[in-house]
């Protein structure tokens, strides 16, 4: 880990043939080639992980003596209490609790609004259906970055700055979720609907007993992606809160990492703690995340 990142090994890696394609006549060169690949992959890993390593280094080093030592690639005056201080001194627990509440409100609301709307678009006939679908999809052109100024006025006028509703209201519905779950619903075979019909299933029963269970993978992907998005938000919670005690974790990081030079390690430790739920999500739901992220890309 303690090596400088070098980009030199990079470009050659892309142009070499795959290990599986090596000719059968040269087992030795094949082994050499595999060694080359491991070297290249490891070098790339070092580049990708180097920033994370630096964060760890800063989090466990005493900030002043680390700088005084000239920022080496090893920790200086190791002290682990930055992690506990992040909770006791910087009130990270409160920020994480708030972020968790806001995230859960957003995820549950998005799941509800998306599933219902997706069902309507997939299984129900009503006037102006195409127009309504366009109205939903067009909201992709109105992300929070565009509507920030006006939504802030709305929330301020409603006296909802520094509140859970103020932090979550603009995100209760999402065109991405509606589109994704609708695609899943449309994949349900017609025979299954016919069978459900013959069994006397109404719409609600079909939704909860057939459509949703059948699309558990897609809904799971959506929930994980929605959680990631809500937890990682920055711009809206940055401006929808004016009091420190209402800062979500991401916003709290800003003050922690920039305020006092002698306590920078607390901010860096906090950044690690804040990422842990996501690392856990990533490990537990790798398949769902990949499926959700690639939904629009590979299958077009």
């Amino acid at each position, binding site marked *: 880990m303690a090596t400088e990142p070098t980009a030199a090994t990079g470009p050659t890696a892309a*142009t070499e043939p795959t290990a599986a394609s090596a000719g059968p006549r040269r087992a030795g060169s094949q082994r050499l080639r595999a060694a080359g690949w491991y070297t290249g992959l490891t070098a790339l890993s070092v580049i990708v992980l180097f920033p994370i390593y630096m964060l760890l280094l800063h989090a466990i080093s005493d900030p002043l003596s680390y700088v005084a030592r000239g920022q080496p690639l090893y920790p200086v005056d190791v002290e682990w209490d930055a992690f506990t201080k992040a909770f006791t001194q910087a009130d990270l627990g409160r920020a994480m609790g708030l972020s968790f509440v806001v995230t859960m409100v957003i995820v549950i609301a998005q799941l509800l609004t998306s599933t*219902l709307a997706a069902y309507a678009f997939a299984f129900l006939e009503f006037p102006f259906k195409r127009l*309504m679908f366009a109205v939903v999809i067009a909201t992709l052109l109105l992300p929070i970055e565009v509507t920030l*100024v006006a939504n802030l006025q709305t929330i301020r006028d409603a006296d909802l700055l520094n509140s859970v509703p103020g932090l979550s209201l603009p995100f209760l519905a999402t065109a991405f979720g509606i589109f994704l779950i609708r*695609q899943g619903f449309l994949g349900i075979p*017609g025979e299954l609907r016919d069978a459900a019909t013959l069994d006397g299933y109404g719409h609600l029963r*079909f939704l909860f007993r057939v459509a949703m269970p059948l699309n558990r993978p897609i809904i799971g992907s959506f929930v994980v992606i929605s959680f990631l998005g809500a937890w990682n938000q920055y711009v809206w919670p940055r401006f929808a809160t004016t009091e420190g005690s209402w800062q979500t974790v*991401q916003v709290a990081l800003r003050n922690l990492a920039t305020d006092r030079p002698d306590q920078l390690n607390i901010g860096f430790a906090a950044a690690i703690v804040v990422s842990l739920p996501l690392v856990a999500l990533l490990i537990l739901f790798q398949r769902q995340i990949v499926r959700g992220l690639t939904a629009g890309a*590979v299958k*077009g």
Partner: protein
Amino acid sequence: MTDLPIAETSLPGTDAIDAPLGSSTRSAGRRFKDALLGYLFLLPALAAFAAFAYYPLYRLIYDSVHHQSRFLNRPPTYVGFAQLWDTLRSSEFTSGLGHSALFMLYSVPLGLVLGVLLAVAAHRRLRGIKIYQAIFSSTIASSVAVASVIFFTLVNPVVGYFKDVSWLSLDSPTSAMFSVSLSSVWQNLGLTFIIVLAALQAIPDDVDEAAMLDGFGPVRRFFRITVPLISPALLFLAIVLVISALQAYAQIEMLTGGGPAGATETLLFKIADPNGIRALDLRAGLSIGLFLLTGAVALVQYSLLSRRVHYGD
């Protein structure tokens, strides 16, 4: 995911046994009930969109064509679309746009190339390749704020590891933007890697083998076979990265605060206006500008995607 025309499936003779699902031969009453239920199901989403997507659009237009007195509590006075037009021609808009474009120029091509490089390197049968794949996708666990804190340890002028590297310096207007966009490149690396790898894995093995039998070398195989086959994914990523560049904010606030001398004040930074120095009508007008830009990107995406619609499975 194929679109099955489920809604059109007709179920002759099922009306009698209370069959509401998708029957085209249902009664008028049934149809009315379906329509009612449809709108009932849409209502929560539509209400949320109306309040926090469409009403804001109206309000932005309203604010950008009215003059708001900053100090007196007077109602805003209408001054007309000329004010919006002036905003979109002002140096505030053009400089913000220029900075956003620079951010894009630095982050999009580099992000794409690095993502492809990682994906190509990790797309092979080797023992332990899953570990490398996990490492390469790891940056999706970091938020923009966390990525900014991480890059703080790299490029901050006081404590940054690379503080003496001139082309990464946050103190000079030209390198500051590059440095900031580099944090975006790193943060988006995981996403780019995952999507390109998925696209590579979707290519059947025999395509590559056939190209090899035809005497294609590895470089030619990559540019003539692989790149065209993963081009839909690359296009998708390019759009995602462009949008993410347009929406970059936390990196700038946390690493440079818009400086030095406003050199990293992107369009969104001016809209968000963390120091509270810009008037509401100006920020509303800039928001309209950002909206138009987002729309232009979407239009490009739509036209490119519909041109290659025959590629779809």
